[in-house]
C-alpha cells in the first residue's frame, strides 16, 4: 500500500509536470537506458519504484514508455540490451522501434526479445496515473472518462489534487463524477458526512464503498450507509427489470434472426432444411473472410459482409436447391435426409478448407462497449445493433413478402401450386428465389452472430434446433409468428434464468413449448383456411 502511495505521489507531481510544462530537460540517453534497465530487471514489487523513477526523470518520452509498458509492448533485445517498443506482435518476427530514439528497427525474431512484464496491479496503478493526467486535457469527453475511472481508486494525495482541479472544472458532469470520487474516498476513510453525497448514486464503486461502510465499527456510519444503500436498491430494482427485459429482447432477437430464414424455407416452402444452420455459419465465415480481405478496417468489412454474407449464403442455397431439393418435389420429408447430408458435408468442408479451429472476428470499435443509460443500466452495443438488425431484416422480409411481385408469387405458389402455375407463374423460378431468399437471410443471421458468438464449424449446429422450435412455436408459414415467438421465448428464458439457472431455464422453456403445442396444435399464429391443410 505504502509503495503505491509513494509511487502515485511522485508520479502525479511529475506527470503534471510532464503534461503542463513542455519538455525542457532532455535527459541523456544513457540516463534513460539506466531507468529502463531498472524497470526491466526489478521484480514486480520493485517495479513500482522503477516506474516512479522514470516518471520523475522528467523525460518527455516517459509517457510513451509507460504507455508501451502498460500494454506489454516494452521489450529489450536480448543480446544488445537495446530497449524497443513493439509495434506489431504477431507471428514469429515482431516489428519494433527503438524506445529511445523512436526510430523503426524493423523485424526482430521473437526469440531475441525480452519483454518487460507487467501485471494487473501495476497496470491498475498506471491507469490511475494516466487518468489523472487526462483530467487536464481539453476534450471534456476524455476528462469525463478519466473522472469516472478514478472513482474508487484514489488516495489522499490524489484526492487533494482532484480537489484543486475541481475548482477549475467547468463541465458539470465531470464535476459530479469528481465529487463522487472524493465522496467515495471519504466514505472509505470513515467520514459520515460524505455518505449523503452517495445516497442517490447508482455507481457500483459507490455501492461498493457503502457496502464496505456498513461493516464499519462506527455505528453511525454503518447506519447511514445502510440507509443510503436502501435508497439505492429501490432505484436499482427498476433498472434490473429493464436490464432483464433488454437481455430477453436481445436473446430473442438472436433467435428471430436465426429462425427467420428458416421461416421462409421451411415455413413457406415446406423444405425441412437441416442445412439451415450451416448457411448461418457460411454468413459468419463470410464476415471473417471480409475482415481478412480488409485488414485494419473491421468496421467497413463488417458492413460489406452484410451484402456479401447474404450473397454467399443465397448462392449456396441456390446450389442446394438446384442440385438436390428440386428433385425432391412432393417429397419434402426426404429433404430432411438430403439436407442433413449437406449439413455434414458443409461442416466438414469448412473444417478441411479453412480450419477446425474458431476464427477471430473482430468487433469494430463502434460496436464494442455499451451505451450508458444511467450508472446502473448500460446496454451492450453489439447486442443493441443485433436487435436493430433483426428488426430491419424482419421488416425487409415483410416488405418483400407483402409488397413485391415476388412475395405475391411466393404466396400464390405456396397456397396452390397448380393454380399458380395455371395463372402463368413460373413456379420453378419462384422456388429458386424463395430458397435463395431464405438462405440469404440465414447468411445475414450469420453476419450478426459473428459479433456475438464463436465463428467455427459448429456454429450452425448450435442454432438449428432452436430455430425449428421458434418457427413451429410461432406457427409454420407465419413470419409474424416467428418474430413474436422468438422475442417471447428469449424473454421468458431470461426472466427464468436468475431464478432457475441457465440449464433449468432452457428446460422449462422447452417443456413450455411442448405444453403450448398441446393447447394450440398449430402454433401461436395458425394458418387459416385451406393453406393450413397443405
Amino acid at each position, binding site marked *: 500500500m505504502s509503495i503505491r502511495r509513494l509511487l502515485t505521489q511522485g508520479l502525479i507531481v511529475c506527470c503534471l509536470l510532464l503534461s503542463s510544462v513542455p519538455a525542457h530537460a532532455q535527459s541523456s540517453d544513457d540516463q534513460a537506458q539506466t531507468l529502463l534497465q531498472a524497470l526491466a530487471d526489478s521484480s*514486480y514489487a520493485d517495479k513500482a519504484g522503477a516506474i516512479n523513477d522514470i516518471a520523475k526523470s522528467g523525460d518527455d518520452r516517459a509517457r510513451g514508455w509507460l504507455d508501451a509498458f502498460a*500494454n*506489454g509492448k516494452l521489450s529489450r533485445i536480448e543480446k544488445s540490451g537495446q530497449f524497443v517498443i513493439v509495434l506489431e*506482435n504477431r507471428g*514469429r518476427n515482431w516489428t519494433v522501434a527503438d524506445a529511445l530514439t523512436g526510430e523503426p528497427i524493423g523485424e526482430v525474431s*521473437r526469440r531475441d526479445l525480452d*519483454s518487460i*512484464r*507487467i*501485471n*494487473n*496491479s501495476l*497496470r*491498475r496503478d498506471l491507469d490511475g496515473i494516466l487518468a489523472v493526467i487526462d483530467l487536464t486535457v481539453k476534450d471534456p469527453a476524455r476528462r469525463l472518462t478519466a473522472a469516472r475511472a478514478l472513482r474508487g481508486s484514489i488516495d489522499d494525495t490524489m484526492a487533494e489534487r482532484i480537489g484543486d482541479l475541481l475548482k477549475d472544472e467547468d463541465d458539470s458532469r465531470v464535476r459530479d463524477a469528481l465529487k463522487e470520487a472524493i465522496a467515495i474516498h471519504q466514505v472509505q476513510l470513515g467520514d459520515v458526512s460524505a455518505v449523503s453525497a452517495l445516497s442517490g448514486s447508482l455507481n*457500483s*464503486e459507490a*455501492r*461498493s*464503498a457503502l*457496502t*464496505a*461502510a456498513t*461493516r464499519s465499527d462506527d455505528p453511525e456510519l454503518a447506519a447511514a450507509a445502510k440507509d443510503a444503500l436502501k435508497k439505492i436498491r429501490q432505484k436499482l430494482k427498476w433498472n434490473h427489470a429493464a*436490464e*432483464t427485459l433488454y*437481455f430477453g429482447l436481445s*436473446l430473442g432477437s*438472436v433467435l428471430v434472426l436465426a429462425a427467420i430464414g428458416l421461416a421462409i424455407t421451411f415455413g413457406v416452402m415446406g423444405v425441412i432444411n437441416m442445412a439451415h444452420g450451416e448457411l448461418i455459419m457460411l454468413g459468419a465465415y463470410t464476415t471473417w473472410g471480409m475482415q481478412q480481405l480488409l485488414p485494419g478496417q473491421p468496421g467497413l468489412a463488417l458492413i460489406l459482409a452484410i451484402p456479401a454474407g447474404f450473397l454467399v449464403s443465397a448462392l449456396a442455397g441456390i446450389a442446394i436447391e438446384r442440385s438436390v431439393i428440386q428433385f425432391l418435389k412432393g417429397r419434402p420429408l426426404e429433404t430432411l435426409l438430403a439436407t442433413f447430408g449437406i449439413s455434414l458435408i458443409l*461442416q*466438414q468442408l469448412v*473444417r478441411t478448407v479453412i480450419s*477446425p*479451429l*474458431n476464427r*477471430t*472476428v473482430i*468487433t469494430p470499435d463502434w460496436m*464494442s*462497449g*455499451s451505451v450508458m443509460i444511467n450508472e446502473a443500466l*448500460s446496454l*451492450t*452495443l*453489439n*447486442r443493441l445493433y443485433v436487435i436493430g438488425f433483426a428488426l430491419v431484416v424482419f421488416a425487409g422480409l415483410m416488405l418483400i413478402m407483402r409488397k413485391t411481385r415476388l412475395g405475391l408469387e411466393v404466396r400464390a405458389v405456396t397456397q396452390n401450386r397448380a393454380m399458380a402455375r395455371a395463372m402463368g407463374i413460373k413456379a420453378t423460378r419462384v422456388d429458386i428465389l424463395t430458397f435463395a431468399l431464405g438462405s440469404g437471410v440465414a447468411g445475414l443471421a450469420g453476419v450478426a452472430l459473428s459479433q*456475438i*458468438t*464463436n465463428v*467455427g*464449424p*459448429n456454429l450452425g*449446429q*448450435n442454432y438449428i434446433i432452436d430455430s425449428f422450435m421458434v418457427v413451429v412455436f410461432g406457427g409454420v408459414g407465419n413470419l409474424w409468428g416467428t418474430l413474436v415467438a422468438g422475442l417471447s421465448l428469449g424473454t421468458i*428464458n*431470461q426472466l427464468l*434464468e*436468475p431464478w432457475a*439457472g*441457465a*440449464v433449468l431455464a432452457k428446460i422449462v422453456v422447452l417443456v413450455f413449448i411442448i405444453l403450448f403445442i398441446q393447447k394450440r396444435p398449430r402454433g401461436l399464429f395458425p394458418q387459416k383456411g385451406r393453406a393450413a391443410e397443405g
Partner: protein
Amino acid sequence: MNVKRVIKLGLSALAVSASLTATAADLPPIKVGILHSLSGTMAISESTLKDTMLMLIKKQNAEGGLLGRKIEPVVVDPASNWPLFAEKARELLARDKVDVIFGNWTSVSRKSVLPVVEELNGLLFYPVQYEGEESSENVFYTGAAPNQQAIPAVNYLMNEVGVKRWVLAGTDYVYPRTTNKILEAYLKDHGVADSDIMINYTPFGHSNWQSIVADIKKFGNQGKKTAVVSTINGDANVPFYRELANQGVKASDIPVVAFSVGEQELSGIDTKPLVGHLAAWNYFMSVDNDANYDFIDSWINYTGNDNAVTNDPMEAHYIGFNLWVQAVRKAGTTDVDAVKDAIIGVSVPNLTGGYATMMPNHHITKPVLIGEIQDNGQFSVVWQTPSTVAGDAWSDFLPGSRDLISDWRKPLRCGNYNVVEKTCGGKEKVAAN
C-alpha cells in the same frame, strides 16, 4: 518374428545411434494409435493434438525411429461421440494392435475408453488437465491434476492479488464440478465465508451470458476484491469473454482466471478487451526458452501457418511422447507391461526449462504458471511456482479421497490404496495381485 532379435537389433542400433534407415526398413513398424476427434464438437480442440502427434512421430522417424524401427501413426476419428471412443480404442488395440495410444480430451471420453484399455492391457497417454480422482494402471496422465493448476492459481489470487470474494463459474460437467468442490473446500479452509463464494454452472456451448455476467458484476460490487475462477469449457468462452468486455468488466476490477482457456481458444477471440485476465497452465507459448522456441518453429513449419499457436495439451503430448520413447528405450521393447514398469521415474525435459518426471501414480511433475492475456492472444507469465509440482491423483480436499494414494510400483501396485484402512479399494484384480 523373433522378439529377441528385434530387441538386439534395436539396442545395437541405439548404440550406433546414427543412420538406421537400412534396419528400420526391414523391421515391422511400431504402431502408435491417435485417438482424437477430428469431427464433431471436440474437433475444435482435438484436431491440433492429432497434428502434434503426427509431427512428433515424423520427427522421431527422421531421427532414426525407435529401437531401430519406424513409428507408424494410426489415426482414427471418434467423432466426439463417447461410445465411439470406446469402439475406436478397441479397434486400435484389438485390430490394429497398436503399442500405445495417445488421445482423448474430455473426461467422459476418457471414462469411456478406460475399461477398454484396462481390459486389453493397452497404454493410454491423456494430455489434458482433468479433475483427478482416478488412477489407472494403463493410463498416464500428462495433463495437470487439480493440485497442479487450480490450487496454485487460487493461492496466487489470494496472496498476490488479495482476492476476498470468489465466483466459481464452470460448465456443468465433472471437471468443473470437482475442481470447484476442491476449491470450495480449500477456500473455506482458508477462512473464506460461504457468502463470499458464488458458484455457477452453465451447459455446454452456453452462448447467452448476459445475466450471468450481470450477476458477477453485482457480486463484485460488495466492497471486497473479487475474482472469477473459470472452468468454462471451450466454445462457451468466446461469448463469455465478449460479454465481459461489453459489460465493462475489466481485469483490473474483477480478474478472471481460467483453467480451460489457452492460446488456441484465444486465437478465436479478439483479445484486446481481455488484456489482463488470467489463465493458469503448465505451459505457455510465450515462455522464453530455447526448447520452446524450437518446438514452436517446428510446429509452424509443420503446419505451414505462420500464425499457428501452441498450447498446454500440445506440450503434454510432447512430454508424454518423449517419456514413452525413453521408457521403450529403457525397457528395450514396446511390450506394455515392460514399458509400464520402465516409465516410472523417467525424466524428460519439458518446454518451460525444467524436467517432467513420471511419478508412481502415473502423473507427472509440472511447473505451474500464471499468465495474463496480452493483446496478441499470448500470455505473459506473471507468476510461477519455484519448482515443479507432482500431480496428485486423489485430492486432499475431498472427504472421499483424502486417504487414498496411488502407487503402481511393486509391491503395492494399487491405484486407490487407502492409507488408513491399509487396503486397496475397488478392483478385484488389483486386490488379487
